[in-house]
């Protein structure tokens, strides 16, 4: 999302506001430090962690991320504003991303988009009144073999027909996938992580435990 509405005469958050990034979130972000040669490169992973934890990336969150990564808040804002995935204002619990590119449009994608909008009474980048869904369209989602497709949370819905939309949206688990997952973005950070801090690799025994799954595997 590009433009972030702010009023320079009104602080986006009170100066003495308590931090909104919890220690667990900060720890997850620090977990990525040793993977990159610069702190700034941790920005995308950090933004993912924060958006996953808080739902969106507020001005206060951006400021706290900047502090953690030792960069300027405007650098964080610059990056946030460039990518369509990050929300700077609260979004719904689940985000629906509808593909509008050629294979989907050729197979009736526009009708699916209309059906979702009508059914949920949302506009592009809008959120339903009950806060369940936010809606946006995107270019090709690389699911063209299943066109027209709709991404809800992590789950790609394939060959969606407009008449299926109400049922699809009523399904509580429609945003989850069954794939065996590495919980890198969900679990508390691995202690030590990939951490001898030398940029450009130089691994250590702990590096092998870089992801939480390894710990699970070892414990199992």
């Amino acid at each position, binding site marked *: 999302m590009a433009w972030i509405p702010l009023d320079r005469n009104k602080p986006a958050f009170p100066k003495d506001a308590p931090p909104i990034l919890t220690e667990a979130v900060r720890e997850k972000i620090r977990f990525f430090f040793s993977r990159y040669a610069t702190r700034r490169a941790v920005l*995308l992973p950090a933004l*993912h962690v924060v958006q996953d934890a808080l739902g969106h990336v507020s001005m206060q969150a951006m400021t706290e991320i900047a502090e953690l990564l030792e960069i300027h808040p405007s650098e964080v804002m610059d990056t946030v504003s460039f990518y369509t*995935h990050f929300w700077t204002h609260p979004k719904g619990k689940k985000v629906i991303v509808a593909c509008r590119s050629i294979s989907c449009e050729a197979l009736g994608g526009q009708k699916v988009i209309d059906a979702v909008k009508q059914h949920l009474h949302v506009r592009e980048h809008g959120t339903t009144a009950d806060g369940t869904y936010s809606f946006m369209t995107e270019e090709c989602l690389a699911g063209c*073999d299943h066109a027209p497709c709709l991404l809800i949370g992590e789950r790609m819905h394939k060959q969606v027909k407009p008449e299926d939309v109400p049922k699809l949206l009523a399904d509580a688990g429609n945003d989850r996938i069954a794939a065996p997952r*590495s919980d890198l973005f969900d679990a508390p950070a691995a202690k030590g992580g990939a951490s001898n801090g030398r940029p450009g690799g130089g691994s250590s025994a702990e590096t092998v435990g*870089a992801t939480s799954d390894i710990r699970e595997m070892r414990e199992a």
Partner: protein
Amino acid sequence: MANYEPILLRNRGVEGSRTLGVYELRGGYQAVRKALKMTPEEVVEEVKKANLRGRGGAGFPAGMKWSFLPKDRKTTYLCVNGDESEPPTFSNRVLMEHDPHQLIEGVIIAAYAVQAQVAYIYLRVEFHEPFHVLQRAVDEAYAKGYLGRKVFGSDFNVEVYLHRGAGAYVCGEETGLIESLEGKRGWPRIKPPFPAIEGLFRKPTIVNNVETLCNVPHIIERGAAWFTSVGPSHSTGPKLFCISGPVNKPGCYEWSMDLSVQELIEDPRFGGGMRDGKKVKCVLPGGISMGALCASELHMKMDFEDPRKFGLLGLGTAAAVVLDESIDIRIVLRNLARFYAMESCGQCTQCREGTSWMHKIADRIARGAGRLEDLDLILQTARNMGMMPGLSICGLPDGATYPIETVVKKFRGELEERIRAQPREEVGQTLAVVN
């Protein structure tokens, strides 16, 4: 067409193909063991001899790219391009979802060849399933000692990290990808310096596509001579082809590069013919950025050379979208134009303004308020941008020029007919809305 035994997709559909155990049972992780006994130079040489041309769109020979690295370098990075955002391409997704260890093996061998200490696999954020599947596979490989320190008991160390993008087509461009990895907006860099000289964190960097690297283990295992024996001499090796749109069997298929567009659409082993017996109107055979074919051009071969003879930019991602006679070509034009207008990163004037103007013109035409002059205007705009003539930093606008030019030129008759048929009284009203 002769028969062909799948190589890259050989594990698709095999139970447990995502696990290290099954991959290894089916012969996986042998090539990397072989490679680690060779010198890095020998590995580069073998890939060079195979003439493995990049599968990410530009078709640049991988071995040659690897040999551009400065000899006296200390740190080297490998970036694996899994941004896959070119409509309508999904072959990287299929490779990662079904056979993640094949990619990891390719990454280890390539990292060894170029002596990279760290490899980042850059994935578009919408790839949730591939991300989890691949991360699991990376975890397994670490646990086995195939990644990290002293891989396979050799002296070679390599870390592999997944890095998720955040929604931007331009981050698939190699220097946009590098900027994005560095935590910045994905603005492509001016070249030279090319990434091999100065890339990620200003260090020598190799960027390769997922499919390119999936070929590497097979080259090492079976040899360059085998690789060059597959397909025509200018387009060697196994290749994935995507087909989508109103065909009976949309999907990702593997074959050598002696396949025609017609065969890809009609053959029961691939697209299986048009749905409901409809006729083909238009095909964009290489991802939309390569341009369009009309129904009389379906004999085009899906290789690195033939597309140019049909006015296309190249093979691209070898992902074809087929459009049937029921679609209004104005809708196609608008859809294509919108893509580039939305995805231009905005740092070059000709690209930013040009793609927006083309979208605006195409939108006006699609809404039924086009003017005959608009067709020349959109062609003129399309000619005013691109990296090749030196008007912009990256290749995105070149990829915008080709589809717009080829659609307008090859379907001009239909476009003019539809513009002439617009009800006059509506044109004025619509123009007032869109302009």
